[in-house]
């Protein structure tokens, strides 16, 4: 069975740096419905930011587990020490795969930071990063 995922990276000034959806094509009923879920996902992720801000003080782990729930969507989060937030919306229960996915994304994010042409807190447009995240998603999520 397949699930729907929405993944976003939020910079330190609460601006999204990167967005991706996985497994969406299954629910491809109509275009407008797809657009609608997209906005809704962004809304849910955005709403989670406040909860994340509080939750980071309760643990030394970078992975904060599932913090919020909206209808059938779980919100899991991973926060880097520099307060960049990786948020994943998913329907199934959070498991080790999700944790690994987020941790690996962190690795790739560090590589992005190492690129002299990337400025912190700007949108990530690198095609390599896109590819890597997609293949991670295939490995761990879909």
């Amino acid at each position, binding site marked *: 069975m397949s699930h729907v995922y929405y993944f976003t990276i939020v910079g330190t000034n609460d601006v999204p740096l990167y967005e991706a959806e996985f497994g969406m094509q299954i629910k491809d009923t109509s275009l407008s419905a797809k657009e609608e879920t997209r906005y809704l996902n962004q809304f849910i992720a955005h709403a989670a930011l406040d909860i994340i801000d509080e939750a980071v003080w309760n643990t030394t782990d970078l992975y904060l587990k599932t913090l919020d729930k909206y209808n059938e969507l779980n919100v899991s989060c991973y926060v880097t020490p520099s307060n960049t937030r990786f948020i994943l919306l998913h329907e199934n229960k959070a498991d080790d795969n999700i944790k690994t996915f987020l941790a690996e994304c962190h690795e790739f994010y560090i590589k992005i930071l190492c*690129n002299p*042409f990337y400025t912190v807190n700007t949108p990530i447009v690198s095609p*390599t990063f896109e590819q890597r995240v997609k293949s991670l998603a295939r490995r761990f999520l879909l």
Partner: protein
Amino acid sequence: MAKQYKTLGEDIWKNRVETINAELFIFTYGSIVAQLVKDFEDYEQVNKQLEKMGYNIGVRLIEDFLSRSGWGRCTDFKETMEVISKIGFKMFLNIAPTVTNWSTDSKVCSLILDENPLNDFVELPLDTQHKLWYSNILCGVLRGALEMVQMQIEANFISCVLQGDDISEIRVQFIRHLQEELPNADD
């Protein structure tokens, strides 16, 4: 002969070179290039500036090279290129580019950089396609260093893995031997 250069290069790298943290080096160079791109907003200009900076490094670096390697004069351009690759590049960057594609008159050849530490982590902005030669500083270093040993050359990148090419290649062209200056006639 070529084997002898290689052994010497490796020996120098192991015993006579102080090393620094690679990331520090890579980030230093990276931030220089990124800043130049920001300041000039023109990749041609950035290439030029990098080449100039390289030249200024090269004219000093050659002295360090000569002292560390104890190498004297080379007999011809072919030997020079081998020494640069096997000893020079090895000593300063721990790589040994392949010298190949010699022209029939032995005046033009290519340095193929199988690896290039400067490139680590780097992803070029999408609009640079074949305009920005990220490691262009190397061309300047070659020109500066060789000028100090009385060889005028020109070096240019013609392909680079960062631009999506299969290999990184610097084309080096020998132009002429510089004449030693003579004392003024009034002596």
